[in-house]
């Protein structure tokens, strides 16, 4: 990796552009394509001038990795009060002196956005951080959200439940191999839930937990329910911190901030937003909409998912361990990875083992699950959980057949939301109720890390490009005709014995993947 760091002074118009020049020199020497350099330069130059015009001064860092250039622009304040305004073309707060020089067109951030593949702004009164990434080459991983579901085919006993349950029909069982069509997979938990033999698992490149020093964990609340004793209390968090140097932050902290933010967003932009606004809480739902309901992408509130925002609340030198509840959270971390953060993803089962072994605090009694006087949550948003309900909702919304139009909706592919992830093995609704009532106590006992922040999604979500039959349109059309023909000879029972969820999918497999038509039991009979 090649990197560099340069400081920029406030009001230093005379030297404006020097950092960009230096970075350009490095990139040119390395022989980076001129079209890429141009995009980097527009982004860096706009950012540099922003530092000179608007900030108290700051620095620009760049990192060149195998396939991407990351630029981090940091300043020490005063911060952007309203990012959603600042990224609008033509909106400017530049002073007169800057305008006289041709700056202050209100095109700075929009220009950066146009020229970057990934752009995240994070701003508070202590300063603003821009994370800008430009890919050297667009590859399939950047274009598509891809699957983070690992497969152990040898465990499969061909019950075919997974192919039926997969919402985007992305699973095939071929001969002795279970195959996931990566660019269709939305990384929900459904196959993991349904498989009786544990074929599916989270795909994690496990780095383990390092010994020593301060540790930061971001964990889902229901994980603690699975420690067997509903262990998470303010005492437990304190003891972990004091005895083991472990700081635990429930992901719920950011979920809560996100809900409040989106609530404000809906109130302030009421006339400009597509209702209902969908909370980007469950990444799988976001991917699902991008994949199968492209017309609804505009309903998703422009914020990153909580797990993406959460890691941005810690400084770079801290290694953060995240325990995900599903593959979609891994995907959210990996695909739109926050730059330069050392994030360690830990398998839920390993996390449970880890915390069990720590033996911190007295083991609570079995009856600790008792709640006297519990409150039922009053939420402004409509909460819809479970694949079927979410599918029904999205379809009705697309066809404009909802009985009424809720303002904010929370959708989760798992029944019971993240409480219903397959790793925790607890009944989700009662677990949720328990933690909702315990929440204030738990919240106050996490060590403070200042004001919690969620990230505005600057680069808008785009519909995901579906599966393409062929790069060449002529060939694609021929294949489409082929598929239709093959589909006509199939029985249309969608029984799933062939390993594909429907006859149409099987026809596609025959044409695209040379699967033998004889896998269909009805064809053999005839």
């Amino acid at each position: 990796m090649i990197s560099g760091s340069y400081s920029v002074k406030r009001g230093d118009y005379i030297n404006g552009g020097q950092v960009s020049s230096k970075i350009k020199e490095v990139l040119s020497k390395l022989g980076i394509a001129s079209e890429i350099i141009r995009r980097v330069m527009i982004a860096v130059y706009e950012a540099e001038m922003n530092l000179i015009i608007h900030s108290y001064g700051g620095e620009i860092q760049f990192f060149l990795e195998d396939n991407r250039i990351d630029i981090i622009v940091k300043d020490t304040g005063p911060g952007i009060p309203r990012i959603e305004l600042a990224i609008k073309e033509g909106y400017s707060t530049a002073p007169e002196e800057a305008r006289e020089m041709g700056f202050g067109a209100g095109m700075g951030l929009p220009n950066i956005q146009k020229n970057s593949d990934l752009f995240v702004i994070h701003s508070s009164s202590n300063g603003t951080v821009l994370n800008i990434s430009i890919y050297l080459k667009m590859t399939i991983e950047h274009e598509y959200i891809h699957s983070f579901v690992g497969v152990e085919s040898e465990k499969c006993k061909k019950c075919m439940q997974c192919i039926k349950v997969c919402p985007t029909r992305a699973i095939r069982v071929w001969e002795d191999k279970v195959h996931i069509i990566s660019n269709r997979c939305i990384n929900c938990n459904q196959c993991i839930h349904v498989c009786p033999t544990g074929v599916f698992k989270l795909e994690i490149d496990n780095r383990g937990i390092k010994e020593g020093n301060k540790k930061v964990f971001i964990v889902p609340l229901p994980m603690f329910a699975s420690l067997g004793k509903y262990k998470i209390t303010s005492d437990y968090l304190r003891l972990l911190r004091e005895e083991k140097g472990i700081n635990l932050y429930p992901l719920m902290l950011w979920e809560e901030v996100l809900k409040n933010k989106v609530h404000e967003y809906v109130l302030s932009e009421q006339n400009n937003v597509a209702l209902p606004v969908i909370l980007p809480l469950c990444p799988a739902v976001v991917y699902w909409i991008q994949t199968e309901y492209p017309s609804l992408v505009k309903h998703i509130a422009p914020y990153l998912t909580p797990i993406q925002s959460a890691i941005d609340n810690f400084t770079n030198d801290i290694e953060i361990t995240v325990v995900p509840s599903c593959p979609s959270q891994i995907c959210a971390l990996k695909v739109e990875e926050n730059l330069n953060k050392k994030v360690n993803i830990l398998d839920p089962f390993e996390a449970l083992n880890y915390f069990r072994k720590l033996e911190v605090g007295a083991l609570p009694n079995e009856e600790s699950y008792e709640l006297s006087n519990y409150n039922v949550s009053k939420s402004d948003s409509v909460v819809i959980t479970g694949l079927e309900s979410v599918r029904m909702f999205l379809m009705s919304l697309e066809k404009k057949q909802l009985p009424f139009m809720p303002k904010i909706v929370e959708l989760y592919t798992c029944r019971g939301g993240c409480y219903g992830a397959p790793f925790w093995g607890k009944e989700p609704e009662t677990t949720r109720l328990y933690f909702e009532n315990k929440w204030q106590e738990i919240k106050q006992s996490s060590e403070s890390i200042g004001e919690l922040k969620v990230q505005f999604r600057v680069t808008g979500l785009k519909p995901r490009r579906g599966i393409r039959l062929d790069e060449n349109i002529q060939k694609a059309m021929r294949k489409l005709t082929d598929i239709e023909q093959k589909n006509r000879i199939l029985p249309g029972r969608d029984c799933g014995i062939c390993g594909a969820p429907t006859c149409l999918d099987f026809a596609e497999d025959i044409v695209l993947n040379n699967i033998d038509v004889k896998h269909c039991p009805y064809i053999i009979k005839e």
Partner: protein
Amino acid sequence: MNIQDIIKSIDVEIIVRGEERDVSKVFAGDRISDLIHFADEKTLLITHLNHISLVQLYKIFDVPAICLITNSEPVLELVESAQEIKAYLLVSSLEMYETCGVIYKIFEKDNTPK
């Protein structure tokens, strides 16, 4: 077309003579963001801005020529950077509208797509 073909056909003063490079498009504007968005190594820029901020258009964005207008006297830094980078710095005697009009005609005559 070659930058010389343009210089020949319009009343401009050559402040700095740069390398002979081809110009295939022209962009006129007074906002840096617009200029850097449109400018590349084949673009002639026409602008009112007679300021040090233009230096980076030479240095970072490889613009082969900048034309100021209405006989303005270029700031020193701009002249120096044009010399350093070996790019053209021109000053037209005409106003923005007229300068653009004349150059437009030159391109039209040349039939080169703008």
